[in-house]
């Protein structure tokens, strides 16, 4: 097999594996038979593998260390979110949506709330809108901290992971104080937020932001991002062109790493993002180094946005008046927000009943997962792990 065939083989294998799935076979078997013809080796990476970020299964055909084909196999964390919510009240969908992308819970809630509020014409008080921005950005910081840790772990550095957890814990302590829960907050309500916050909380938040900006962020950069081994491992690895990224529906830091300055907070402002000043960091090469760097810079931008929110946060109620029984206007409603991973979209169809007729969840990780075969073109095993790590997939969101 020549190098060209190998590169071309990526998409061909995807089709063969997809055929196998259509026939009801295990795609791994089809790939193994195919591989045996060429004296190659097929490995099942996952779902029980230390670095597959949950329960992702990658069927990998290897020629020694070189990757010939990669086929991601999903569905191990399927919880039937979209069907279950068809029999749930609109208010109940909000806390349930936390479970999709469990590291970006607030942004999920905001996405659902925006769709339902548009549908039922619910007024949200300005303080609640600003607080939603604040919490979305705090969530983004916490999620990107974890990305830093797990990406380091994928590359074999263990200490950054523990430092990331140390700092994430502070963020979660803040979240717990504000929302009452550590990961799955259930904080947004239709028409606002569950509860208001005292001044002491905002003071602590400022301390956290100062700590992140002055101590933690420079440490992250110096310990891992500027390390030469890390740079050699990531620069040029898992490269995507802007055209590919757009064609495959990439969004968020993966798309921005390729140089496309597409950020929903800027491109299609929701909540009150149009009132704040912030930059959209972009990369140049679309490799894993750039996507990690984009995330690191986004931490800084998020800190900047939160500081601006704190400056202009108005007083007032945080929960508007909402009728207990929502009367939906029949029709389709779509809302999209920029989650830490990319564009989260909620497509809500109602027929006027008190529960949704259909709810489609657009998960950014699902799109990014399909980029992995592209990112692993002509790579080594270690690069595949780096590529999976840099997409920052959350399987809860992929399988829903």
């Amino acid at each position, binding site marked *: 097999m020549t190098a060209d065939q190998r590169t071309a083989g990526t998409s061909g294998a995807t089709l063969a594996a997809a055929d196998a799935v259509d026939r009801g076979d295990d795609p791994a078997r089809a790939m193994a038979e195919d591989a045996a013809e060429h004296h190659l080796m097929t490995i099942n990476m996952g779902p029980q593998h230390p670095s597959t970020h949950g329960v992702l299964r990658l069927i990998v055909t290897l020629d020694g260390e070189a990757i010939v084909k990669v086929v991601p196999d999903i569905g191990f964390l399927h919880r039937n979110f979209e069907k279950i919510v068809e029999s*749930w*009240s609109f*208010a*109940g*969908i*909000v*806390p*349930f949506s936390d*479970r999709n992308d469990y590291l970006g819970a607030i942004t999920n809630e905001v996405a659902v709330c925006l769709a339902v509020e548009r549908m039922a014409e619910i007024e949200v008080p300005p303080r609640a809108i600003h607080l939603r921005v604040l919490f979305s950005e705090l969530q983004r910081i916490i999620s990107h901290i974890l990305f830093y840790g797990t990406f380091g772990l994928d590359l074999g550095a263990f*200490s950054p992971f523990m*430092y990331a957890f*140390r700092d994430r*814990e*502070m963020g979660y*302590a*803040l979240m*717990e*104080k*504000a*929302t*009452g*829960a550590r990961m*799955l907050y*259930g904080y947004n*309500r239709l028409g*606002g*937020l*569950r*509860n*208001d*916050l*005292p001044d*002491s*909380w905002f*003071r*602590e938040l400022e*301390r*956290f932001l100062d*700590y992140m900006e002055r*101590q933690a962020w420079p*440490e992250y950069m*110096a*310990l*891992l991002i*500027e*390390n*030469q*081994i890390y*740079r050699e491992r990531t620069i040029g690895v898992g490269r995507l062109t802007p055209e590919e990224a757009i064609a495959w529906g990439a969004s968020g830091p993966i798309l921005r790493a390729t140089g496309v300055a597409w950020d929903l907070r800027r491109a299609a402002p929701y909540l009150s993002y149009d009132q704040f000043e912030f930059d959209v960091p972009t990369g140049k090469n679309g490799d894993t180094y750039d996507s990690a760097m984009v995330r690191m810079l986004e931490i800084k931008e998020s800190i900047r946005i939160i500081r601006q929110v704190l400056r202009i946060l108005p007083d007032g*109620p*945080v*929960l508007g008046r909402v009728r*207990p029984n929502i009367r939906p206007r029949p029709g389709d409603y779509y809302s999209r927000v920029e989650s830490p991973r990319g564009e989260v979209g909620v497509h809500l169809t109602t027929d006027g009943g008190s529960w949704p007729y259909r709810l489609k969840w657009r998960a950014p990780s699902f799109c990014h997962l399909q980029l992995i075969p592209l990112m692993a073109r002509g790579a080594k095993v270690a690069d595949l792990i780096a590529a999976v790590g840099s997409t920052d997939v959350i399987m809860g969101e992929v399988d829903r």
Partner: protein
Amino acid sequence: MRAAVALWERLWNTGKSMVVGHGITIREMFHKPVTVRYPEEKPPFERGSRSVPVLKVNEESGLLNCVSCGLCERSCPPSCIEIVQAIGADGHRKPWPETFQLDLSHCMVCNLCVEACPFDALEMADVVELSSYQVQDLIFNKEQLAELWKTSRALRVAGGECIDMGDDTVAAGVVRS
């Protein structure tokens, strides 16, 4: 020439980043660990932490506040609350629950039942050590829920209210390093 410069830059950055990185790890080594050694020392529960909805008991009468209206049952998204209204000897329905069952294995701790309750009968407790090998142990009846209310530090946060965190929790700090 350019290759030589690139090589030199790589070498220089290798050396520099090694020194800086090792400096960071050795510095962290002489800081106090941030681990909370869980069973012996417990992290402070923030005011408003929630883990399980419990039934509030009226301090004066010793009876449940619950009047068995069923609003929480209806508002519960995963339908983990089950209420059966009491029926007295005279055959009339009475304003207290005959059974009030909460299936904690289904509960997603969303606080919606508490917000739905107009009678101040539900609160969110902050007990988390409820794990069990038997799923049946996670189904609580009304006596158990009342007992949990008495033994835990429960809090009711109605929609849009401001949580009073008190000053003591501010010190029990965010920045632990």
